[in-house]
Structures are given as C-alpha cells and as structure tokens.
C-alpha cells in the first residue's frame, strides 16, 4: 500500500508511519522555508493511526465509494495531511518537492479540488464539522458502513458554527462521525485557553450527546485505543477524541522553541530538525 522506503522493517509499525509522516512534513517545510510544521509534528501520531490503523481506503482510488472520509477542517494543517497522504500512497512522493509552489497540487491551505484524498476545502475555520454532518446523514441514507473522520483544532472551538454542528450531531445521533480535536493550546493570537476559555471540554461535549475520550495525542498506544473505542462504542452517539498534543513533537529544539502558531525555522535548521527526528527515533 505505502510507497515509502524509509522504514526499518519490511512491515512498518505505526511508529514507523508516524516517523515517516513527520519526515515528509519536514521535507515539505524545507521546500517552502516555513509552514505550520509544529502542528504537523504534533498531529502525526493521530494521522498515522487514522491512515494505518483505523480507516478503510484504497490508495489507488481516493474516491472509492466505501472509503472512510477524512475531513481536514483546519486547512492550514494541510502539510501534515499531505505528509500522511504521501505515506499512504495516495499522493506520489515525488510531488513533495512542489509543496506550496506554483502549479502544485499541494497548496499551503488544503483544498478539495487540488489534492487527491482531500475531502474538503478548509482554511476558513469552523467548516469541517458542518460538512461532516451532511456526509454522516448522507452515508446513513445510503446505508453505508463508512465513517466520517473530522480533524479540527482547539482554536476552532471559538467558532459558533462548530457548536451548531456538535449540537446537531447529538440530535441526529450520528454514530458514524468521529471527531478529533487537536488541543495543542496554540492559535493565531496565543494559547487557545487564554484566547477563549473552552474548558471543560469533555463535559461540554458529553452534555451535547457525544461519546468523548481525552488522550495524550502523542502516545501512540493511547491513540490506537481511542480510535478502537470510538469505532466499537455501542451507544448511538457521535464520537469525539480530544487529543492533547505537543507542538513540534519529535524535534526537541522545536518543542522547546517559544510557542508560536506559525514558527520560524531558519534554512539551516531543517536538516538539523530531520537529524533530531532521526536521533529521537534511534533512542
């Protein structure tokens, strides 16, 4: 299925997948000289579990009718999803060098009409869950077993439309929806909890009728268990995974860099970051 050759064994583990996704993202960041790389690093474990454990899809047929849908609501995380789509063999690895360039199918902000495997045009925040509601209703109309995964950011919790969608998912008991909210506590103007207090998030979501799990989004075993539970949970409720993550995860000097929504990485640092990622993996 995958095209990557950067693995240590013949059967890549989920840790290998997460490593490869981080590596792909860093390589794209280097092409562009900037990007939402800290977010990409924080969400790579979730994407590895999504694409290599939880979801059903066919890399050679991204619009296969029975595929699980993956909606990227936070379109600026596109660099992370491209990294996963490359690892999954949906986007050819050669296109990595075009990231954010003219004529590329990998624009800085994710759009459905540009990229195979990209299900929606994000970028304007707070859209994804509303689309997911319609897809969830539509899949039920078709009696499809497919699920709709929607990744969004903690900053998007500020958007009223997100709560419109959360309320309606509970109303329609959309048990084919699995939401993942990336709580990295960072948005454009600073720490998300300070920009607009959104806690207690688990209790709020439960009150809206969701089955909610809160996990360390960088603990692979915890992520795997959360996706398994989300899929097997028996109640007719939409499912939310609240994933606490660490910006820059896997590259210590980026983890420690002063927290920033759009981090500055100097040209010489990309290779250092790749080396640090590799070192962390060997340790």
């Amino acid at each position, binding site marked *: 299925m995958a095209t990557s050759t950067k693995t240590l064994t013949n059967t890549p583990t989920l840790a290998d997948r997460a490593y490869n996704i981080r590596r792909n993202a860093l390589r794209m960041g280097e092409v562009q000289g900037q990007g939402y790389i800290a977010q990409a690093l924080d969400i790579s474990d979730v994407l590895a579990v999504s694409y290599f454990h939880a979801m059903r899809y066919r890399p050679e047929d991204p619009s296969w009718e029975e595929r699980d849908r993956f909606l990227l609501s936070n379109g600026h995380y596109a660099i992370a999803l491209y990294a996963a789509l490359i690892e999954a063999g949906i986007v050819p690895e050669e296109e990595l060098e075009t990231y954010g360039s003219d004529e590329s199918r990998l624009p800085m902000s994710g759009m459905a009409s540009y990229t195979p495997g990209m299900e929606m045009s994000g970028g304007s925040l707070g859209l994804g869950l509303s689309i997911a509601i*319609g*897809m969830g209703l539509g899949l039920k109309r078709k009696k499809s077993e497919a699920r709709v995964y929607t990744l969004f950011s903690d900053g998007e919790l500020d958007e009223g*439309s997100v709560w419109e*969608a959360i309320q309606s998912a509970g109303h329609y008991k959309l048990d084919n929806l699995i939401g993942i909210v990336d709580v990295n506590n960072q948005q454009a103007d600073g720490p998300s909890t300070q920009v607009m207090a959104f806690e207690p998030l688990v209790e709020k979501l439960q009150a809206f009728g969701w089955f909610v799990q809160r996990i360390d989004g960088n603990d692979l075993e915890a992520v795997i268990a959360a996706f398994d539970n989300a899929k097997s949970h028996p109640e007719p409720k939409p499912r939310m995974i609240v994933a606490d993550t660490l910006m820059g995860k896997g590259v210590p000097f980026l983890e420690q860099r002063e927290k920033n929504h759009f981090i500055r990485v100097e040209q010489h640092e990309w290779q250092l970051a790749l080396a640090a990622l590799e070192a962390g993996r060997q340790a």
Partner: protein
Amino acid sequence: MKTVRSAPQLGRPRLTTSAMIASIAAEGQKTKPAPFGHALVELARTRSDVVGMTADLGKYTDLHIFAKEFPDHYYQMGMAEQLLFGAASGLAAEGFMPFATTYAVFASRRAYDFIHQTIAEEDRNVKIVCALPGLTSGYGPSHQAAEDLALFRAMPNMTVIDPCDAHEIAQLVPAIAAHQGPVYMRLLRGQVPVVLDEYGYNFELGKAKLIRDGKDALIISSGIMTMRALEAAQALKNDSVDAAVLHVPTIKPLDAETILREAGKPGRLVVVAENHTVIGGLGEAVAALLMRSGIHPAFRQIALPDEFLDAGALPTLHDRYGISTAEVARQIKQWL
C-alpha cells in the same frame, strides 16, 4: 451616528405592516399556493436523490409541503444557517441534491462564507432557495434582502435566479434540478401571483424572454418587477406610451445575446427594473454589458436605494422606493 425617529402624527388612518411575509399579490389577482413546495414534491417523485433541508423555516419557505410528502427526505437543521449550508454540501458530496431553504437575508449575509467555501468553491450540487427576496417584508433590514443578488452574483460557480410568479417557479424547479451545480433561487411563497401563463411564457435556464414588445421603452426586469413592468406597460398604453418588457429571470449567467439584441434596437429608452438595491444587481449587470458591447441607449434604473429601508406596510414601501406599478409607470413617463 444613530438617531431615533421622531414620533408620528397620531389620530390618522395608516396601513399596517401585518405579517412578516406580506403577500405581494394584488387584491383579486390570480394566485397559486406554494408553487415551490408542490413542484419539489413532483420532482422528488421522479428523482430519489432529492432532499429538503431548512433552518427552522420549513413552513415559511413552503418546504413543509415536501416534508409532509417525503418525511424521510427532509432534514430540519435548527436555526443554524451555517450548519444548514455546510451540511447541504456534505449531503451533495455523498451524491444527493439538497434543496436548502431559509430567508434570503440569512443565506446571503449570515452564511455567505459557508456557501462560498463549502458549496460554490467545491461546485456542490446544492439548490439554495430563499424567501423574502429584496423588499418583500415590512420588518425592516433584518428581513429585507436588498443585496442578495449582488452578493451571489459575485460568487464564482453560482447560478442566480429571480423568478416572477407561480407559473415560473413551477417550471424552474425541474430546470435547476437538471442543472449540475450550485443555484441560488429567490423564492416567492404562500399565495403567489400567476402572471406569465397568459403570455405563453416558458422558463429556460439562462434565457431572457421578451414578454411584450413596444417601440418607446424597453423595460428589462426580473422577479416581481416583471409583473410590475407588465402592469405599468398596460397603464402607460393609456398615455400612448408603448413599452416592451424583457424578463430576465436568470441573473447569472446573463443572457447577453438577447439583452444586446433588444437594447440595441434604436429609439427606445432602456429601463432596468429590479427588486434589489441599485448596487450590483441586474441594473448594473446590464449597464456593464451594454458599455462593454458599445451599445449606449438612454438608460435608467428602477431599484431600491442604497440605504437601510424602512419598516412598514409593503404597498407604502413599494411606493416610497419607486417599485410599485404606479411608480414604475410614473418614472418611465417622466423619463420619456
């Protein structure tokens, strides 16, 4: 700076605003009830992909008729227009054809980004059907969508339609269903006048049609203003003014060929009449088309002014803002 109006003169009779959705039918005029609701039911009998969606305005957009007939094809999204259109995009992505209804003010102003990004940009097959277009409510700017056509004209991929009457609405529902892509349609609901049947008119998507001919003036109009234009043309006849009426229900894409052919005929004053602000609607679309094409007839616009419109009774407001039959006739006579 905000100022509060001075108190009215008391003790004299005045018209009342009445219901939020006042009828635009004149007394004694032939009408049909809920043409959209009934047409959608007919459509859904032939196509299983049709779904109806609304944001707590099913009864007020005639969608309740569809909901009663096809309860399993109907989605109540609550009073949440952003959700309504985002979810409509999702259903369209799964192969369904949502007809999503609300008031024109809420679709155009509150949910604009959702329609822009999740429907138009992704070219989703969603039909957006909106009641209270232009000045068809006396409740003030909260319910008066004077700028909806300008906003949706400016959106790539969007087809924009402003129908005149029940006859046309019944015909255009299957026509927009046959068109693959997003459509914004202005809706007349409740008891809707029937006007165009007498002229042997048939709706065709993207086509302007000459409803009556005349040698002195050409009124180019859409929506309820075609009804007003026909009435005004009849009244002008008594003053020996011969006015033609070109009905342009499809605001975008504009039927440039027909408009240029009619406006290019010499010796006629060209008047564009629309139930919409003077900014960015049919009038400016036609003006720009004529300028680009090097056709320069005497040109006037009948449209709502660029201001927040008053609350009040519709007949009062239509007179005040120049879109009543009497005002259309008076202005044209004055310009000739």
